Every structure is written in C-alpha cells, then in structure tokens.
C-alpha cells in the first residue's frame, strides 16, 4: 500500500511539470507555431524540385537529412550485430541450427500454410511497389523492406528449415545485411566525386535523372538491407 502511494506521488511529480510545460507550448494545430514557420516551409516549398521526390517526407529523409538516415540504417545494422553478439553460441552457426532440419517444430495448420503460400507472391510484389514508389506515395525503403522481411518470416513459419533457408542466399549474406549503409555511402561518395559534396543530390533539371537514380539506389538498398537484417534477427532468435 505504502509502495503504491509512493508510486502515485512519483507519477504526479513527473506529470505535473510536464503538463505545465505542455500547456505553455504554442497551440496545437496552429499554422503560426515555430515548427511550422521556421524550417519546414522551406521543405514544403522547395522539397519537390530540389529534393527529387514529390513526397516531401521522403525528400527530408533521404536528401535534406540524409546523413541522419544513413546512421539510422546503421542503427538497424547495429541491432543485428548486437543480437548476434548476444545470441550466437560457441561452435555453431545458428543457421546450421543445432536442432535437426526438417519440418518446423510447431505443426502449422493446413489453412495457414495454404494462405501464406498463395499470398506470398502478392506480398512480394507489394513490397517492391512500396520500395519503388516511396518518392510519390507514402512508403519507401523502410516500409517495403519490413514487408519483405515479414514475408520471409511468414514463409519460414510454414516451410521446413531447409526450404526457408534457401529463400535468402547464404553467400552474400553479410553484404546484403549491410546493403543499406553501403548504398548510402556509395551514393554519398558519388555525390562527392561528381558534384563536390558528400551526399549531394543534383538539383538541376538537367541532372534530375541522376537524383532519381540516387534516390532509387538508396531506397532499394534500405529495402534489401532492412529485410535481410529482420530475417537474420528472426533466425538468430529461432535457432536459440
């Protein structure tokens, strides 16, 4: 009882100053607030032509704040490396799992198996669509990559281990997992070599194709990298 009272007091002590702060913030939804009048008008005005993508969020992510996103994808990679550093065990690559290959250990209902297999090609198509249309519709590499990763995970649930492991090639595995940061780096260096600034996307109409190409390379890189990392994390946890 005492403990509960203490916690309530603590929560009120945390909430009160926060509520006070919130009440003094510029009014929500007003177009006069600093966030809406300072930096973002520039993005909204120029984002479409300078940023190379009609979806301004994509412009901001990949172009104006591309350096952030380069390290965001590094965060994903770090998560994978961290999971592997914690879960890998001595003497066994977990993809060659300790448990015997064959049917997945938990029996899967026929309905689930059938539906996953039927839907798989459509999900794959959808993920490719989301990756490639990130510049004009909501979506992009992260979202599409997640869909692709989820697809592989769903398939691994209904397939035997050998079949599931064959879904992703083993040889270039490490490169695929690092695809996103590498794509960013290569694009950045291309910008540096051709236009003199790291992660520079050409803004001239004449070079628009180059900007679009760079955006696409990054989106695909993020998609491939994100999906492979997700699948690798899943496999590490499964093998354990």
């Amino acid at each position, binding site marked *: 009882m005492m403990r509960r009272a203490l*916690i309530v007091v*603590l*929560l009120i002590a*945390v*909430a009160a100053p*926060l*509520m*006070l702060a*919130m*009440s*003094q*913030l510029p*009014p*929500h*939804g*007003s*177009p006069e*607030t600093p*966030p*809406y009048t300072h*930096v*973002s008008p520039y*993005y*909204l005005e120029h*984002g*479409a032509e300078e940023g190379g993508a*009609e*979806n*301004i*969020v994509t*412009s*901001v*992510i990949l172009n104006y*704040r591309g350096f*952030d*996103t380069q390290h*965001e*994808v590094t*965060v*994903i990679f*770090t*998560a*994978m490396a*961290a*999971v592997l550093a*914690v*879960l890998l065990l001595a003497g066994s690559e977990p993809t060659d799992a300790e448990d015997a290959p064959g049917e997945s250990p938990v029996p899967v209902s026929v309905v689930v198996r059938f539906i996953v297999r039927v839907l798989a090609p459509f999900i794959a198509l959808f993920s490719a669509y989301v990756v490639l249309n990130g510049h*004009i*519709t*909501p979506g992009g590499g*992260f979202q599409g990559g997640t869909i692709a990763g989820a697809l592989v995970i769903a398939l691994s649930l209904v397939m035997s281990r050998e079949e599931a492991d064959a879904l992703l090639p083993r040889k270039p595995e490490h490169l695929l997992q690092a695809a996103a940061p590498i794509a960013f780096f290569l694009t950045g260096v291309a910008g540096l070599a051709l236009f003199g600034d790291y992660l520079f996307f050409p803004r001239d109409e004449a070079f628009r194709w180059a900007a679009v190409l760079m955006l696409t390379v990054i989106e695909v890189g993020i998609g491939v990298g994100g999906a492979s990392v997700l699948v690798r*994390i899943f496999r*590490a*946890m499964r093998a*354990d």
Partner: protein
Amino acid sequence: MLQDLWHNLDYAASVVLFCIGLYTVITKSNLIKKFMGLNIMETSVFAFIVALGVVDGGDAPIMGAGAEAPFINPLPQALILTGIVVAVSTTALALSLIIRIWKQTGTIEADELRGME
C-alpha cells in the same frame, strides 16, 4: 492553465501515456512487461513529436496533381521514422537479452533474479 492545456490536448495525452509507461516499468516484475512499459513511453514521445507537425486542416505533404496547401509539417514525421527504427532495434536487443537470461536462469521475473545475483 487548464484552458491552454485543453488546446494542447494531444500533447497532454502523450504525457498521460508517458506516465502509464513509467508506471509499468516501475511496478512490473516481469522483464518483458517492463520492456513493454518502456515501449509505451517511447510511443508517447513519438506521438508528442508527430503531433507537433499537425496543422489544422492539413494534408499529407505529397506534392503533385491535386495537392493543396496547407500541408502537414514533414520534418517530425521524418524524425519519428528514425525514432521508430531505433525503438525496434532496442526491442530486438532487449528480447535477445531476455532469451539469454531465461536460458541461463530459468526465470525472467526481476524479483527472483535479484535473489540470484
């Protein structure tokens, strides 16, 4: 003050969510539940920052045919995309640690673990 808070109800809601998360982190003994509480706290901060970008009557910031001002501020959305990725990464690592703790000790209750140390 209350009137101002009413205007900023979205922000106030994220404070409430934050406190719910904090309560879960403090009171739950199960490590997974503790971490879920942390995820709720993370979500509250994300909700707060995304709410900063809202403008009344605003449209999604996608230019092209038929797009009309006002648009919603794109920057907070871009930031929170990053924030979500970070949260997912932390969750993956936390779950792996919990898997290992469970394998080594057979429990994921914080009180029982404290007894073992």
